[in-house]
């Protein structure tokens, strides 16, 4: 009886072992983000300017902006000078802050449940479903890099649409059209200023 029982348990053991190995706690990281951080951004009693600066802090702390910058620029990153890279990083942060800050109201009351996790070497996909009151559920998948227990988001996949790829294609189109990275920087600068 005993060996048989052990065999029955083997798959479970394997499943349990493969769980936390690579991206230990990536799911609880996302859960924390949804339960503790999100309400701080959507709380209507806090002034918008305060919420914006909070969001910027979240971007810097919980997102890997360095890597996102690299990914969305793709091959243009490789060719850019260190000064240009630094400028792009700063502009990207400003641009993303502005882009998502406008949507805070829509995020109020958003409920995020973790459907599951898949771990890969050094990173995980955390699969969640986001539901708003009266709205249809939206599939929201987080790509999380994990290192020494530290987690940072590198991509957000919304209903199959990767934000990094979307941003990369848009930026790349601008670089091609304007004939260089400077065109993109200019466009970002004027958008942020406007």
């Amino acid at each position: 009886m005993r060996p048989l029982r052990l065999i029955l348990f083997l798959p479970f053991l394997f499943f349990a072992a493969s769980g936390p190995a690579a991206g230990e706690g990536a799911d609880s990281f996302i859960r924390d983000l949804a339960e503790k951080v999100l309400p701080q951004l959507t709380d209507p009693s806090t002034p918008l300017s305060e919420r914006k600066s909070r969001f910027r802090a979240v971007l810097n702390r919980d997102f890997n902006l360095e890597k996102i910058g690299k990914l969305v620029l793709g091959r243009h990153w490789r060719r850019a000078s260190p000064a240009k890279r630094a400028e792009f990083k700063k502009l990207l942060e400003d641009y993303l802050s502005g882009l998502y800050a406008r949507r805070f109201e829509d995020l109020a009351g958003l409920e995020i449940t973790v459907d599951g996790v898949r771990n890969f070497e050094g990173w995980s996909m955390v699969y969640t479903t986001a539901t708003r009151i009266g709205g249809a559920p939206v599939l929201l998948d987080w790509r999380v890099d994990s290192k020494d227990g530290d987690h940072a988001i590198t991509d957000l996949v919304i209903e199959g649409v990767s934000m990094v790829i979307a941003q990369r294609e848009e930026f790349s189109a601008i670089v091609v059209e304007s004939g260089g990275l400077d065109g993109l920087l200019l466009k970002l600068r004027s958008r942020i200023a406007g």
Partner: protein
Amino acid sequence: MRAGFEHAPDPIRCLVADERPAPVRHLRALAGALFLACLLSIAAPLPSSAGEEPQQPSFNDPLETLNRLVFAVNEALDTVFLRPAAVVYGAVVPGPVRRGVRNVVRHLSLPFTFVNDVAQGEWKRSGDTAQRFFINTMVGFAGLYDVAEKQGLPHRSTDFGGTLAAWGLGEGPYLVLPIAGPSNFRDAAGLLVQGVGDPVDIAFRRADLDHMPLIRAGAATLDFRHSNLDTLDDFKAGSLDYYAFIRTLYRQRRAFEVGGDAEMYLAGEKETSDDDYAYPPPRPDFSRDGQPAGTRPAQ
């Protein structure tokens, strides 16, 4: 999702708006068919010109110049006609009536969805579609009320472009259709088939209700445009290159819906990106209780 102009935003609609893709658009299918016929005759030599610029990243858009032109015309038409119409529709027509319009529009798309489910070999889904159609026809007053959704049979749509994908046909170059909006060669062909093969429209015509397909298409378009007012306004205001943004949304969303294309889509990306970033693997199918039901391929 499928069909018309609505295409454009569809990817995003699911991000923000509460609605999932609407059905078939006859009118647009027809326009698409006409356009495709014209296009095919002139398109042939164009793709090779993409090779002129060796650093051109792979947007799968050899017809970009033409596409951008059509896109701009569509945008102008939207600004002048469709968007204002959708605003008025939202202001004048009460919510419950709009809800009913949406339900009927979706209901009428189910027969063609069923045909495609079967053609794709999706037996479980075709059963769900048939059941949904039956329940809402009988209990939901010919589709006016969505009773099936409460019974765990939510609206789902597929189209002939999805069927062609299931049969192994690649997306082909990206294509912006006049009025119908973002598409590709495969999905445009799908629209064409839909234009002549939609069972409900065929039934309408047989019953000498020739105006019904048009009314149906109009209602579907209004419903779609109205439910995406804020989303599209937002994306238009937020994006730096609206055309490029919609293009990537359409392509990613379609790859996600019909499956199979993601890898092809990214094969070209790998050359241009110096990082190890790859498109995330297909999402595992999680059942309602949160247990992974195994990792099925995207399709």
